[in-house]
């Protein structure tokens, strides 16, 4: 598919933008943060997202989904980046992907409709170390029970189901765990982006395999790619938004009797970011299209997109903060909220360093 949006995609973007700016603007994130609410998202907004068809829109029609593809999911994620909408969107996309990939017919029939309708929040219990590491797991599955500790389970606080990656004799497996079951301890985190995540301990907790254990490895790899492509799209939305706000400020703020945007030192730095954003936009869309088309290069393109956007979004935020001067580092200005979300979204499922190394090895054989 060409690297331009279809008419349907343009309509989807407009719908998502309209909805999010009305129902989940940056001020809503701020209010939620300041309220001390532990869920850290607004269930009514999540419900409306379901009604709009915004949750896991990539689930194929044959599985009861909307069949709109990963590109559609990415475009929604990108718009969510613009307003920093705090929702369990990524967790839902991940859970749906895992179920579609390996779930048994009954599991699909049971879980997918609930996920898509926004009625079942599922946390993906994957990470165990200090940084993203997809190579192996120390959490074990034996005699129908899992034990060990998982880190940074997104939307883990209040989730009604967890999908846990654990080691079996046949390699890594995926297991469904009820967070209210015996031996589960959910320890809420206090992430800098004010979103919902928890570390979770399991001690001989009853667990049911999701599909065939032997099929888990490929499903996990595929799902990580999807998560990366969606995060890259969100990072693009964040970077675009922070950049546009900064350019507006350059035109508005007056020093030395003229707008600061008339100073060439600032103009060139802004223009360089414009150029990089313009260039990288294509890579973000290409990764999503590659997932949709089952392109063999998809896994590397997802790394390219996530690695590049993690770096670029950070560079945009450094300039965005700096060009706002003193007010840029205050909590009063929204720019700081974008800055924090960029850091978290970059860290999830591999930052620029991780993906550069992965691409060096797997794409270029060095």
């Amino acid at each position: 598919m060409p690297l331009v949006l279809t008419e349907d995609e343009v309509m989807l973007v407009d719908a998502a933008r309209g909805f999010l700016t009305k129902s989940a603007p940056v001020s809503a994130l701020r209010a939620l943060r300041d309220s001390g609410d532990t869920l850290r998202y607004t269930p009514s907004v999540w419900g409306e997202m379901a009604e709009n068809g915004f949750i896991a829109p990539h689930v194929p029609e044959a599985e009861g989904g909307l069949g709109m593809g990963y590109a559609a999911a990415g475009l929604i994620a990108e718009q969510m980046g613009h307003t920093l909408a705090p929702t369990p969107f990524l967790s839902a996309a991940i859970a749906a992907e895992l179920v579609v990939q390996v779930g048994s017919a009954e599991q699909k029939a049971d879980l997918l409709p609930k996920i898509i309708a926004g009625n079942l929040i599922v946390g993906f219990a994957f990470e165990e170390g200090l940084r993203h590491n997809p190579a192996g797991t120390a959490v074990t599955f034996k005699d129908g029970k899992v034990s060990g500790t998982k880190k940074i389970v997104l939307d883990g606080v209040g989730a009604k189901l967890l999908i846990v990656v654990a080691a079996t004799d046949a390699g890594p497996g995926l297991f469904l765990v009820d967070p209210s079951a015996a031996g589960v301890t959910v320890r809420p985190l206090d992430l800098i982006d004010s979103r919902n995540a928890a570390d979770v301990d399991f001690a001989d907790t009853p667990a049911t395999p999701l599909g065939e254990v032997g099929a888990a490895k490929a499903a996990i790899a595929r799902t990580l790619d999807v998560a990366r492509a969606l995060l890259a799209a969100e990072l693009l939305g964040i970077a675009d938004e922070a950049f546009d706000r900064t350019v507006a400020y350059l035109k508005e703020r007056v020093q030395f009797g003229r707008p600061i945007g008339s100073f060439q030192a600032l103009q060139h730095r802004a223009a360089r970011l414009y150029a990089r954003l313009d260039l990288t936009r294509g890579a973000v869309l290409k990764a999503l299209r590659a997932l949709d088309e089952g392109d063999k290069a998809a896994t590397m393109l997802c790394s390219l997109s996530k690695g590049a956007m993690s770096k670029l979004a950070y560079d945009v935020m450094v300039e965005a903060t700096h060009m706002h001067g003193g007010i840029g580092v205050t909590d009063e200005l929204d720019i700081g909220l974008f800055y924090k979300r960029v850091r978290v979204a970059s860290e999830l499922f591999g930052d620029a360093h991780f993906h550069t190394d992965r691409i060096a090895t797997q794409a270029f054989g060095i």
Partner: protein
Amino acid sequence: MSDLDDFRAETRAWLEANCPQSRRGAFRGFSTFNYWGGRKAVFQDEDQQLWFERMRDKGWTVPEWPVEYGGAGLDKARANILQQEMRRIQAQSPLQSLGIWMLGPALLHFGTPEQKAEHLPKIARGEIRWAQGYSEPGAGSDLASLSTKGELKDGQWVVNGSKIWTTNGDKCDMIFTLVRTEPDAPKHQGISFILIDMDQPGVTTKPIKLINGDDPFVQTFFDNATAPADQVVGPRGKGWDVTKYLLGHEREMIGSSMTNSVTETVSSVAKAKLGADGLKADPGLRIAIAQHEMESWILGIAVERLKDMGKAKQFSQFSPSVLKLMGTELNYRRGELLMSIGGFEAINDLMSEPVHSYLHAPANCIAGGSNEVQLNILSKRALGLPEL
């Protein structure tokens, strides 16, 4: 659809049968390996001549130009197929030419029917080699301040002044120039785009040697040089519009020529030269190469996206500046990495490929409007930032 499939199959078979083996392989930069045409041209070898003549006779030196002007009149879809099929076997371009890349598009857009009939076929058939005469010793980035003077006397233009950085000016037959013809008009409105034959006593050139030993440029002097009155492209005094249009083409071309699809990848050079173990022993270099490959890949995708946008009629007017800026900076790092990979060997040979890339890279950031000029364009026009 099946028409296009047929075209692809025919094209593939024709290229297989007609492109000599020695004319296939990775792009080797804008070197003498490629044929540039013109009155003074000599073929480097038989294959170069065969390939050029075969392609010329099919109109495939300029596949999209109308047949009457020496092209093949291909539509976009067929031209793309031809390009893909050439790329598939790494067929070298049969004719490199500023006439094809720059003057041709300007004439197609702004030229009179007579100008098109006179000049386009000679460009397509490689009979006339064109030079670009914009920059002057006193007018570089501020090109519109140029002072080469043209006066209409007795039905012809009489031109006086000098141009500098004329790429391959000594090998060219004709030059498209920017000349101040309306001295009293504001600076952008007093310039005309005039075509001048270089084969006359009033035009002389002097070579300029570069840091990599090449002398690819000349300074061009006009001393009562003449051109017929009808050799002005676009209206008199409106040469700046023609130039702006052309510079867009040039920038896009410079930028997109930096992508991986047209040049050998740095990682493949590194693997061949250092081996996997050599690279493991140098993790800093390995990561720098990977970063470069990522950026280069992204640039390639951006070029692909630009083509798709063009097909969907969503052309972005700032893309040439973006591609020029990002592509040439990438090329800078490419040159540096190739030198690191080449190590002691590379610093010991001014004629080696890495040295050539390394020393040529800065030129790309200057030619076609320096990168600061591109940043100025983006700041002012894409972002709407105010003038100081």
